[in-house]
């Protein structure tokens, strides 16, 4: 409905335009004629100039606008274009001609010859195109009007030239000539009309008999003519209407097509847009998904981090040892519960404070002296201090090294009071056990030995044999007690107490002294190389390191046949002090070498040589050496001998 209304409205506008065009054409010509006449008669030269200019401009602009109109309205039919063109050209020529004419008044007389042929040309042209213009009658009327006007102008012109050349301006002449011109024009028009009508009455001049018939026929013909004319007119009108309708319809169709095309392209665009939109939505969905994944991952990471942090905090707080964490500048970051409890510290009182503030707390003050030296944090390991009597703690400072930078330090406070106590108890036990067990054993040993040696009088061979067996059993018992004491010393090897800075030479000398008797008995050559060499001192638990070296030397003597050779060498190896014990003994098989440091392990050939060994000596030795951050290893060949190496870091390192 709307479309229809629109089309109808457009049609109406179009019709109105055309009607206006026709009316304008009919109006403009007489109007112009009057204006021209008026100016011709009364105008002063200035007005003529202005009008002339306007008309010239009008003539060109008219053509321009007409051309523009035709170009912008592709729906115009050829005949319509022709009509418009004719009208335009007509108006244009008229305007051009009039313009030139008015110019000629003020500018130069030589323009007049241009204006004159132009007017003639326009007339000629009008004649040429007249068949195109409506009916002949009208054309003719135009032509006559035109001729009349030209004539009038020419007349005026001559009188004007005349007045100019005579240097006088006779308005009377002009007005009178103008008046004459108008009259003449009127006569001309009238004459033309008479000529036309006389042409129509041509039949008057034909024979009388036939005149009536002729008249009748004429009348009939006239009637027919009239009706034909009428019909033609109607037909023309119909054609015009049809043309208009076709035009309108065409335009409508064109519009429709245009709209349809528009719609199509719009649809197409829409489809494309839809596709793009879908793609974008998909992309957006994927992005959202990816983002969600990232977010989820982030969330997971965060949770993980939080969990880890919680775990770390929990571990730190529930750690059995006291922990104090401080940054590289020595500012306290965290004090765990155990440290707070042991040292009677409130975390809030010391947090974000320099480490030295701990000196205010008497329990931890001795440790602070170990931790800080010359205002610098010291990296220490298990340094003992005593917060109060009967309490021993160790402090270790560990550098917390991150991937790129130092995060700070961790101070670990470990209570070793219990270990110390146990250690003391153990030492006491060993001492008591040794004393209590060995006393009767030594009494038995000495008594039997004396009897066997005949100190209590002569004994029979049988008595001697029995006593010998008893003596051997007692010897085994003594070995067993030694084993027992060694077992209780195993754990001792892992802890170092009473560390002193000493020269290992004295230790080796003591060891050799202990074995003096057996060396003599077995007629062995035992030498100590490096006894006079200057060797760096070592920081060791003397009792333990002596036990370790004693084990090696005693083993070398025990497992080397009588008359064999043992060489003990003390030397420096880099920053370490090296003790080498070389023998020409039974050696250790490849198979047994792997298990040599194992607890209770004894090499097969060693059992054969000495039945009452314990398999603990090397195990204890290894523990002791490792507790001193030293190393122990050996080289051995079955039947040829063994060399044991033992290193202890020197006090300088």
């Amino acid at each position, binding site marked *: 409905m709307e479309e229809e209304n629109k089309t109808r409205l457009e049609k109406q506008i179009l019709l109105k335009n055309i009607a206006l065009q026709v009316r304008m054409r009919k109006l403009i010509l007489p109007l112009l004629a009057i204006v021209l006449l008026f100016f011709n008669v009364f105008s002063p030269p200035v007005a003529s100039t202005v009008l002339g200019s306007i008309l010239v401009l009008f003539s060109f602009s008219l053509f321009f606008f007409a051309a523009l109109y035709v170009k912008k309205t592709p729906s115009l039919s050829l005949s319509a274009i022709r009509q418009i063109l004719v009208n335009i050209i007509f108006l244009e020529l008229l305007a051009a001609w009039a313009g030139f004419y008015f110019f000629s008044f003020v500018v130069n007389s030589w323009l007049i010859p241009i204006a004159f042929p132009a007017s003639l040309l326009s007339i000629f042209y009008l004649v040429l195109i007249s068949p195109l213009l409506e009916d002949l009658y009208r054309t003719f009327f135009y032509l006559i009007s035109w001729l009349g006007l030209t004539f009038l102008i020419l007349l005026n012109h001559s009188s004007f030239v005349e007045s100019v050349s005579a240097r006088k301006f006779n308005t009377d002449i002009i007005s009178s000539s103008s008046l004459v011109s108008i009259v003449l024009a009127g006569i001309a028009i009238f004459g033309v009309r008479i000529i036309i009508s006389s042409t129509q009455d041509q039949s008057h001049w034909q024979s009388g008999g036939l005149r009536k018939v002729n008249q009748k026929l004429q009348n009939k013909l006239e009637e027919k003519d009239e009706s034909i004319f009428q019909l033609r007119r109607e037909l023309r009108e119909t054609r015009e209407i049809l043309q208009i309708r076709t035009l309108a319809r065409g335009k409508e169709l064109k519009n429709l097509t245009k709209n349809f095309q528009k719609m199509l392209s719009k649809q197409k665009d829409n489809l494309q847009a839809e596709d793009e939109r879908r793609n974008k939505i998909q992309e957006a969905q994927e992005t959202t998904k990816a983002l969600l994944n990232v977010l989820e991952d982030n969330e997971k990471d965060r949770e993980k981090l939080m969990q880890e942090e919680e775990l770390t905090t929990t571990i730190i707080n529930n750690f059995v040892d006291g922990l104090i964490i401080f940054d590289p500048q020595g500012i306290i970051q965290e004090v765990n519960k155990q440290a707070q409890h042991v040292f009677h510290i409130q975390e809030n009182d010391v947090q974000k404070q320099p480490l030295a503030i701990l000196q205010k707390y008497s329990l931890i003050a001795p440790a602070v002296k170990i931790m800080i030296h010359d205002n610098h944090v010291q990296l220490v390991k298990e340094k003992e201090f005593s917060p109060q009597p009967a309490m021993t703690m160790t402090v270790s400072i560990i550098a917390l090294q991150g991937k790129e930078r130092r995060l700070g330090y961790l101070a670990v406070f470990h209570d070793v009071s219990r270990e110390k106590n146990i250690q003391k108890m153990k030492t006491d036990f*060993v*001492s008591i056990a*040794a*004393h209590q067990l*060995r*006393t009767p*054993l*030594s*009494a038995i*040993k*000495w*008594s039997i*030995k*004396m009897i066997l*040696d005949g*100190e209590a009088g002569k004994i029979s061979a049988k008595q001697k044999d029995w006593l010998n067996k008893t003596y051997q059993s007692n010897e085994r018992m*003594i070995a067993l*007690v*030694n084993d027992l004491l060694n077992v209780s010393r195993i754990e001792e090897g892992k802890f170092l107490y009473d560390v002193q800075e000493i020269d290992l030479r004295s230790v080796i000398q*003591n060891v050799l*002294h202990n074995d003096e*008797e057996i060396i003599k008995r077995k007629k062995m050559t035992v030498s100590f190389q490096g006894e006079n060499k200057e060797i760096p001192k070592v920081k060791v638990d*003397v*009792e333990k390191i*002596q*036990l370790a070296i004693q084990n090696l030397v005693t083993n070398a003597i025990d497992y080397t046949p009588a008359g064999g050779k043992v060489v003990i060498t003390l030397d420096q190896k880099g920053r370490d002090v090296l003790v080498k014990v070389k023998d020409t003994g039974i050696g250790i098989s490849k198979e047994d070498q792997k298990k040599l440091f194992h607890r209770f392990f004894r090499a097969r050939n060693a059992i054969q040589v000495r039945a009452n060994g314990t398999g603990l000596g090397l195990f204890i030795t290894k523990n002791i050496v490792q507790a001193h951050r030293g190393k122990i290893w050996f080289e051995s060949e079955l039947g040829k001998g063994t060399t044991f190496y033992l290193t202890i870091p020197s006090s300088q390192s």
Partner: protein
Amino acid sequence: MVKRILVLTEEKLVSNLLKKRLSDEDYQVVISDDPEKALVIIIREKINLIVLDLDLSDLTAFSFLVKKKSDSDLKKIPVLVISNAGQIGELSQAQELGATDWVLKTEFDPGEIAQKVKNIFKSIKATS
């Protein structure tokens, strides 16, 4: 001149066995179980060597060594320490306090101890 040896121990068996064995080697042996009295005996009997049992009750053996070391007359008299404990710390302490030598009772028999005594006298003779 006969060497005079003091055996200071609370174990009767040890002192008897040592007395028997050392007498065989032509030493004059005096026995004591009291460190306080022993200090007097050493001067009175002009003792040349002391065999000291570290296993005297109440660690009196060490106080005996301390006292002996602080006395300029007694200082030079050699001491052979015999012990059952055999703790290295104990032995080194005894050495610091002037013990000339030591033996672990379970590792030695009286004959070997007599040999040790002989060695000590030999080394003293060599140095003097």
